[in-house]
């Protein structure tokens, strides 16, 4: 009897399952016995550090670069190495290859002596200082800023309060403006129930556990499902490597300065002042209409942290004529890192910046 094609397909399938089961065992052992993967490997210099603030400059790798440098501003809740997870999975490396001069603002956990930092410190001191230092470092008077999530909010406030400043282009990645559209986050921090003063006055610094629990609770099954998925995919080296890098990043959530958290809760979450145009920073009203530079806003279709309701008003409120909106497939994190980002977001951002960086 000659084997039919159905028999051979079944044999292939069984062989694949056996191979993968063996591979799972081998890789599983390696997984539990090895250290987490190294991250943030692209060569860089720390050109400024002050308490919680760090400014990196990445070594250019192109023979010829665009005139205007790019500053990436990380959200205050997480480490900036998500921009530089691993070779081939690094947005920084991609931008360097495309010919950009890249700077990154990263955050260290704020110390108890920094518990009093507020939005003014971040937007009227840290950001302007970094912009000034970049100008000194590279010799160019202007800069493009790319802000991610809360980093986007800080960049927006900076841009609105420094309308005549050196900002050339502003790209916001999944940046909330209408904080009443923040879904469960807004519900949990409802002023009727959430005593933010007690939290901040007791702890000074809002612990990283509190911050990461808030994110985890938005999708409580995500972590256990991720663990099951990684076991099932244990035969796939690339998947495991990528999962471990993301997992490490997720575990290294940062604590927040108490006053900054209090102000974010009261002014943004409760009173929606950024959206209403009543937020005050640097003794001036934050009017998003004052932003006249080219603005790009990239959001994710399945973002469970910053919903469309929260992010969509950004482009309606700014005063720029050159404004671009891009809604991409993916979630809050897969927008900036991982295979989706490599295929979709990085090329789109790079093309947009390139046209405006000479």
């Amino acid at each position, binding site marked *: 009897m000659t084997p039919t*094609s*159905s028999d051979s*397909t*079944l044999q292939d*399938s069984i062989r694949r*399952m056996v191979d*993968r089961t063996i591979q799972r065992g081998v890789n599983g052992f390696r997984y539990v016995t090895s250290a987490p993967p190294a991250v943030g490997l692209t060569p860089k210099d720390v050109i400024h*550090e*002050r*308490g919680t603030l760090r400014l990196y*400059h990445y070594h*250019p790798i*192109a*023979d*010829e*670069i*665009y*005139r205007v440098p790019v500053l990436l501003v990380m959200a205050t809740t997480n480490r900036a190495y998500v921009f530089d997870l691993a070779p081939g999975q690094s947005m920084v490396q991609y931008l360097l290859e495309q*010919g950009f*001069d890249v700077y990154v603002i990263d955050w260290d956990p704020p*110390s*108890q*002596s920094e518990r009093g930092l507020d939005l003014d410190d971040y937007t009227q001191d840290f950001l302007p200082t970094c912009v000034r230092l970049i100008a*000194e*470092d*590279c*010799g*160019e008077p202007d800069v493009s800023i790319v802000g991610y999530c809360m980093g986007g909010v800080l960049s927006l406030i900076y841009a609105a309060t420094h309308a005549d400043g050196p900002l050339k282009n502003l790209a916001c990645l999944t940046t909330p403006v209408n904080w009443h559209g923040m*879904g*469960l986050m807004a*519900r*949990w921090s*409802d002023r*009727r*129930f*959430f*005593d933010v003063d*007690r*939290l901040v006055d*007791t*702890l000074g610094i809002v612990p990283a556990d509190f911050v990461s629990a808030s994110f985890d*609770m*938005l*999708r*409580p*099954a*995500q972590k256990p*499902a991720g663990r*099951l*998925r990684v076991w*099932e995919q244990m035969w796939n080296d690339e998947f495991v490597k990528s999962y471990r890098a993301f997992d490490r990043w997720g575990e290294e959530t940062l604590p927040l300065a108490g006053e900054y958290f209090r102000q974010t809760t009261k002014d943004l979450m409760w009173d929606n002042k950024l959206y209403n145009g009543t937020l005050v920073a640097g003794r001036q009203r934050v009017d998003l209409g004052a932003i006249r530079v080219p603005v790009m806003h990239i959001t994710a279709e399945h973002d469970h942290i910053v919903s469309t309701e929260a992010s969509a008003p950004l482009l309606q409120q700014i005063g720029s004529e050159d404004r671009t909106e891009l809604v991409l497939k993916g979630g809050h994190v897969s927008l900036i890192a991982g295979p989706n980002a490599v295929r979709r977001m990085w090329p789109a951002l790079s*093309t947009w910046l*390139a*046209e405006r*960086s*000479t």
Partner: protein
Amino acid sequence: MAEQTQRKDPFIQLQQFITDWERRIDGVANRVMGTDEFARSANVLQNVQLGLQRAFLDAMATHLNNLNMPSREDINILGEAVMGLDQRLARIEQQLQKIASMPDQAGPTRKGPPRTKRPPSQRGMSSSAGDPS
């Protein structure tokens, strides 16, 4: 045929099961956690925890004070002050090195590749504009 084989593959079925399970759990949890009752209960719990923490910290600080010993907060403040001094010294050292290696004329502190790159759209235009034919 391939579809039939996929249906028989237990690992593909497991993947599907995980995805469905995750969606179901998240959906139910989000409905429960999106209520006022949940927000109220979670915050009551947190306030109790914070109250206990405060009381414990205060009691411990009093005991340590009576024993003439520094509290953890005192040690933290001291540690941060030392680290602050260390960072400040490192910054001063960095500035001094920068000044020492700086050329006399004003300009960027770092030399790098030329900043003359053009975007692909302009590169096409400039090459055709410069084309003698």
